[in-house]
């Protein structure tokens, strides 16, 4: 009697890869870097809170002669630390390594020889990246929020709706950056360098100038989702304020959804068709 065995579906296979990859991703050397990266804002918030407790007279809470409350400092940290730095960095380091790590470790063969669609490997790893980074970034933001917002008499309750919006925005940002760099990782030979140049070269440069090029960035659409005011911390920021045209929230959400799904799909196709030659 013969038993017919149908191959598992794309999502079923992706779920198995997700389960396998999540543990690998969390307990890898890269996670030490991730922990340091996300621990820094928490330590900074803790330091600010301590200084606030020591100098309750409010001597230090002046930026350019203007008194700044906890909610404003939190907004500043969201902009400068999370949106401009942590989210793109996580996207670059994790997104580009989804397939590249398996190629470098020469373990990709083991995954590709399983009776599952090749694109399921990428999809499962992408989902593991998303869960891993989201569950590390959001608690970090949460701790920073509770440490920083009460400074200067700020109200947790008043600022709480903004925190929920920040959560959504950060999760969307991680999804979009991760998807873009997953595509880069599957298509390009040195994805990390390309990713860093894109995040910290191309995106900030293009956003400074008027024109349509900025629409070829993720940051352009992310800006519209941020509820905090953009800090004017440098001449570059002032220029960004001047030349900035902000798309509507609906446009941004639609664009980021298209970027995320489109690039994951393209990355999946690349994995399906690309022939990986493992160097001996």
């Amino acid at each position: 009697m013969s038993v017919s065995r149908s191959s598992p579906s794309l999502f079923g296979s992706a779920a198995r890869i997700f389960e396998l990859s999540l543990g690998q991703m969390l307990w890898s050397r890269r996670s030490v870097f991730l922990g340091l990266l996300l621990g820094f804002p928490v330590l900074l918030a803790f330091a600010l809170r301590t200084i606030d407790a020591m100098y309750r007279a409010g001597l230090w809470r002046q930026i350019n002669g203007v008194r700044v409350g906890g909610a404003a400092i939190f907004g500043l940290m969201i902009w400068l630390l999370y949106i401009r730095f942590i989210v793109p960095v996580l996207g670059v380091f994790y997104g580009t390594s989804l397939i590249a790590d398996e190629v470098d470790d020469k373990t990709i063969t083991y995954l590709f020889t399983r009776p599952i669609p090749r694109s399921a490997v990428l999809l499962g790893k992408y989902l593991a990246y998303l869960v891993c980074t989201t569950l590390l970034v959001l608690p970090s933001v949460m701790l920073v929020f509770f440490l920083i917002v009460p400074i200067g008499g700020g109200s947790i309750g008043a600022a709480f709706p903004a925190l929920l919006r920040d959560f959504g925005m950060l999760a969307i940002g991680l999804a979009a950056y991760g998807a873009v760099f997953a595509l880069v990782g599957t298509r390009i030979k040195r994805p990390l360098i390309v990713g860093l140049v894109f995040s910290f070269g191309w995106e900030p440069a293009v956003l400074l100038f008027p024109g349509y090029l900025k629409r070829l960035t993720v940051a352009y659409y992310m800006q519209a989702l941020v509820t905090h005011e953009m800090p004017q911390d440098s001449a570059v920021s002032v220029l960004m304020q001047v030349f900035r045209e902000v798309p509507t929230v609906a446009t941004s959400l639609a664009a980021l959804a298209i970027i995320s799904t489109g690039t994951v799909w393209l990355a999946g196709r690349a994995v399906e068709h690309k022939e990986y030659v493992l160097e001996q």
Partner: protein
Amino acid sequence: MLTRTRYFLVASLLVLGVGVGTGLVAYYVGFPAGAFTRGDAADELRFIPRDAAVVAYVDVQDVMASDLRQKLHKALPGDGNGQREFQERTGINIETDIDRIVACLNPNSSMSNLPGAGLVIARGRFDEVKIEALMREHGAHVEEYSGQRLIVADRADHADAGDHPPQTTTFALSFMEPGLTAVGSTNLVKNAIDLHRAGDNPQTGLVSVMRNEEMMQQVKALESGNAWAVGRFDALASRAHLPQGVAERLPPITWFAVSGHVNGGLRGVIRAEARDEESANNLRDVVRGFMALGKLQAGSNPQMQLIAQSLELGGTGKTVALSFVVPAEVFDAVATMMPKRQPEKPQPEKPQP
């Protein structure tokens, strides 16, 4: 999945769950602070522009229903014709139809004089048709703005003493939602409509006073009361075109705040924030002097003595606060000094032809 991975997931979700839970509790329970409570002024403050120099709030229902108001209504001369006429012309009974008012003053850079641009957000029950008809009778026209009807009237301002020519400003009214109306300078009313429609959006420059942290800290620091006002003293003084001698002698105050609770009597606090501690100490000395003078003047008048005794000077650092209580007895005494109000006579019936 490894056990430690499972622990990590549980720990992370636990931190998020506890944080979100605490935030929700703070949002629903911990939000009220002093005079600034959600469901009261907070709702209307969302429509006040961020750069407002003065923001004021009155719980009209509370004030109208207070014993003090009832006493004054009975004691003060006048037969209430003005109030009745206002009701006939607008359909608004001030005593019952208006719940609360939030107002702001925005010294407009394009205008040479105070008061600049103003906006009043009123919540209550309004006869929209009657009010619109009344305004149109007086030359107003209706415009459409962001899907809202905007009733706009022109108002010619007088020329001031300087070289500035007379200006024509527009005054508008809009019913933003049932029971909520915005009335004031057209630009501010349009801004309120935008804020009502889209909410705060710092990216487009559309921001309410709720994001003005300095102003909101002043509001939160107020004593609870059914009427209050907070404003930037320096912003108002710099645009008031005061004579040089007067302007130089003004105390260096940056913020002022007044809050009061009207019930049987009147309890209130006047608070000022000076530029520095030295200025605050000087201001305290001046107020102390006036308090001493007031106590001397009170003499043997028991009501005045009660007021004088209630005066209390406080505040630390740059803040100077003066609290006072005007007890119900003072208003009773005032009422006895007033001529008695005549009871309304029934109108004689006109003879039938």
